[in-house]
């Protein structure tokens, strides 16, 4: 059979400053080779064929003496029970492996072999699907979506600083529009008089209510972003310029939106885009709208209820029996900040093989 595969290419979406630049391709054997090149001992796999017509090869990778066998069996059984015509992409498996109605992502997709190897060393399972350049990392916990491979290639103090920025961006992305709506419609006491007067001056010519204006801006931004993603590179720069003109100068000059609303929505949207996981970006978008609606109805009380709702979702989510928000002290040292010690450890909730290494 002819070889229809493309050659190895650079990473497209999860860019880092340091670290390797090779990415997965559509051939499962090449993808397995990229991982095996980095992990030479004890790398084990289970081969499955799923899809009545596609007979797609699926490889479940794990490390023999690190990964919990029950997790591997659980994943293997769930994938084996899939009865479908064809598996075209790894995301087809996600319907069987995670709760579809949960807003928060619990499975990470990555095109980076180094990220997969790091996950294997932590006791996680990697699922490779033939004809798909993305691997699945299972289970992916809350803090995993805030980490990048760069965090492990730099000094702890730099990594900690960037992680704190990411967490702040997460909350800004979800709560900033809601807080602005609360302040400008119900809870004027929260800001000082000069700021209140500045906000009033900015909104004096806008014909819409604050929350309608916010929803219109969010919709415009999402349309622009979607158009930018789907268009070819040649046309995308035109869309960016057009969008900037429409959403910026022209809308304000026409008196449709206030400048402060553009700033709020822009900061909130850009803060949401710093995450490489598209699933987390989508989850942030949904929470942003829920908090916006709660804030419109109930003011700052609604914003606080939105926070409780988010916290409830985070604490209530489980993936393969594991808690989404880890309580293991070793993991908390590598969560919001990064603290290293001479003895490197693993998450004891995921594996009994606790010690990862020692610096002498």
């Amino acid at each position, binding site marked *: 059979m002819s070889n229809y595969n493309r050659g190895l290419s650079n990473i497209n979406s999860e860019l880092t400053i340091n670290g390797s630049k090779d990415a997965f391709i559509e051939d499962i054997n090449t993808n397995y080779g990229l991982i095996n090149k980095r992990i030479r001992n004890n790398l084990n796999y289970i081969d499955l064929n799923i899809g009545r017509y596609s007979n797609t090869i699926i490889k479940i990778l794990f490390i023999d003496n690190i990964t919990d066998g029950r997790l591997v069996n659980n994943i293997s059984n769930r994938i084996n029970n899939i009865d479908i015509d064809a598996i075209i992409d790894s995301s087809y498996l996600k319907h069987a492996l995670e709760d579809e109605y949960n807003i928060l992502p619990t499975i990470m997709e990555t095109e980076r072999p180094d990220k997969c190897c790091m996950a294997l060393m932590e006791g996680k399972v990697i699922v490779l699907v033939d004809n798909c350049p993305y691997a699945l990392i299972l289970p992916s916990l809350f803090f995993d979506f805030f980490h990048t491979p760069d965090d492990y290639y730099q000094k702890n103090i730099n990594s900690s600083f960037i992680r704190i920025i990411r967490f702040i961006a997460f909350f800004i992305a979800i709560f900033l529009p809601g807080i602005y709506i609360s302040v400008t*419609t119900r809870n004027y006491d929260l800001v000082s008089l000069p700021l209140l*007067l500045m906000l*009033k001056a900015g909104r*004096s010519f806008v014909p819409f209510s604050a929350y309608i204006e916010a929803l219109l801006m969010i919709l415009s931004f999402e349309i622009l972003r979607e158009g930018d993603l789907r268009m070819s590179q040649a046309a995308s720069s035109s869309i960016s310029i057009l969008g900037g003109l429409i959403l910026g100068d022209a809308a304000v000059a026409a008196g449709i939106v206030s400048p402060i609303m553009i700033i709020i929505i822009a900061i909130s949207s850009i803060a949401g885009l710093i995450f490489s996981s598209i699933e987390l970006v989508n989850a942030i978008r949904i929470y942003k709208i829920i908090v916006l609606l*709660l804030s419109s109805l*109930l003011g700052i009380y609604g914003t606080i209820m939105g926070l*409780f709702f988010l916290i*409830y979702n985070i604490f*209530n989510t489980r993936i393969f029996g594991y808690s989404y928000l880890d309580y293991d002290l070793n993991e908390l040292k590598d969560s919001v900040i990064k603290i290293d010690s001479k003895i490197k450890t693993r998450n004891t909730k995921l594996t009994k093989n606790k010690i990862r290494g020692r610096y002498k």
Partner: protein
Amino acid sequence: MKKNIVLLLVFLFIGLFFNIPKYNELNNIVIIDKIKIECSNDIDILLREVNPVKTDNGITYNYTYYKNNIKNINMFKSSFANKYHKSFYYNKVKILESNCNDIDRITSSINIKPNKIKKS
């Protein structure tokens, strides 16, 4: 999914029992920054509204005055709301000027906490 929807409805329902401030667009409220109260036979009250206007040079402030005469200080807020049919916002009052003897009783009756109280 059902749990999430139920939780959101519970939050909305609980919100009915809290004292949520009334919904008012910023353009529709009258922000009062100065109050003058004169006690004579009746109580004469003058309110000053600060209205920000955006210009090419930044923000300038225009002032509008509202006048009313009442017999009982407890009718302060309702009398202005009924006379002018507007939503007055008193929580940012900077100066309260008055010739009345019992200013502390007046401020606690009308529930206004100005930054500065001047005796005239």
